[in-house]
C-alpha cells in the first residue's frame, strides 16, 4: 500500500492488538463464571472460549484497521459549514448525558446471576443505547451534510 511506512505498519498492528485485548477483556477472556463442574459444561465452556476468541480476532482485524486507517488518512484541510441554527449545541449534550445515565442504570442490572426478567430489562436498555447512538449519528449527519 502506497504511503505507508514502517511506523505506520507498527501502529496498525498496535491498533489491532489493542482492539483484540479490549474485546477479550469485555468478555472476561472467554470465561463463563456461572457454569458448574461437569463434562457438559466443560465442553460448552471450551467451545464458547474458542468461538469468542475467533470472533475477537475478526473484530480486532476489522476494527483495528478502521481506526488506524481513519486516523492515518483523515482529511487534513479544514471545511466550514454554514448553518442558520446550530441544533447540535443542544442535541449533542442531551444525547450524551442521556447515554451516560443509561449506561449507569445498566451497570446496576448487570451481574452474573441475572434472572430472565432482568435480562429482558437489560436487553431493552441496550436497544435504547443503539437508538441513542443512531440519534447522535443523525444529529451529526444533519449538522454537516444536510
Amino acid at each position, binding site marked *: *500500500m502506497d504511503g505507508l511506512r514502517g511506523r505506520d505498519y507498527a501502529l496498525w498492528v498496535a491498533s489491532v492488538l489493542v482492539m483484540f485485548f479490549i474485546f477479550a477483556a469485555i468478555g472476561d477472556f472467554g470465561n*463463563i463464571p*456461572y*457454569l*458448574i*463442574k*461437569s*463434562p*457438559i*459444561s466443560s*465442553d*460448552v*465452556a*471450551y*467451545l*464458547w472460549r*474458542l*468461538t469468542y476468541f*475467533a470472533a475477537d*480476532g*475478526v473484530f480486532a482485524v476489522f476494527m483495528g484497521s478502521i481506526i488506524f486507517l481513519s486516523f492515518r488518512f483523515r482529511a487534513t484541510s479544514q471545511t466550514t459549514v454554514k448553518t442558520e441554527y446550530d441544533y447540535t449545541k443542544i442535541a449533542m449534550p442531551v444525547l450524551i448525558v442521556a447515554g451516560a445515565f443509561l449506561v449507569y442504570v445498566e451497570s446496576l442490572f448487570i451481574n452474573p446471576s441475572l434472572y*430472565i426478567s432482568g435480562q429482558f430489562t437489560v436487553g431493552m436498555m441496550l436497544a435504547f443505547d443503539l437508538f441513542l447512538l443512531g440519534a447522535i449519528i443523525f444529529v451529526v449527519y444533519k449538522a454537516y451534510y444536510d
Partner: protein
Amino acid sequence: MKLSRFFEISTGVFAAIILIVLGVLSFQGLIAIDHGQYFPHNETPIVIRVIAKQYVWEFIYPNGTISYDKVVIQAGKPYIFNLTSADVIHALYIVQLGYKLEAIPGWNYPMHILVNEPGVYDIYCAEFCGPGHYTMIGQLIVTNSTAG
C-alpha cells in the same frame, strides 16, 4: 499477486477456516454430550424418566418415586434423563450446565448428566409452551456422593 488482492482473498479463506474448525469441534463436543462419552465405564447410569407437562416437570425415579419440579442426583455419578413431553413441545434447560434438550410428545431423548459439583441448579423450560411457560421452573439438586 498484489498485496491488496492477497488480503482480499485471505479474508475469505480465514473466515472459511475459522468456520470449519469451529464446526468440526462443535460436532465433536455435541457427539460427546449426546452419547455420554464422559461416563465412567465401570458405572451403570441411573435412568430417570422426565415428562414435561404444561407447566410442570415430572421426574420418575427407577423405584417409581415421582417428584415434581425437583430432581435430586449425586455428584460424580452418571444419570440419564429420558426426556419426553405429555402435551406440547418443551425444552429442558439446565442453566449452569449451559445445555438444553427438546422434549417432544411421542419421542424420548436421552440427556447424559454427570455433575461433579454439589449444589442447587436452575431448570427452565426453553421452548415457549403456552401462557404459563414462564412458571415452568424446576431445580436440579446435586448432593455430595458420600452423603446418604
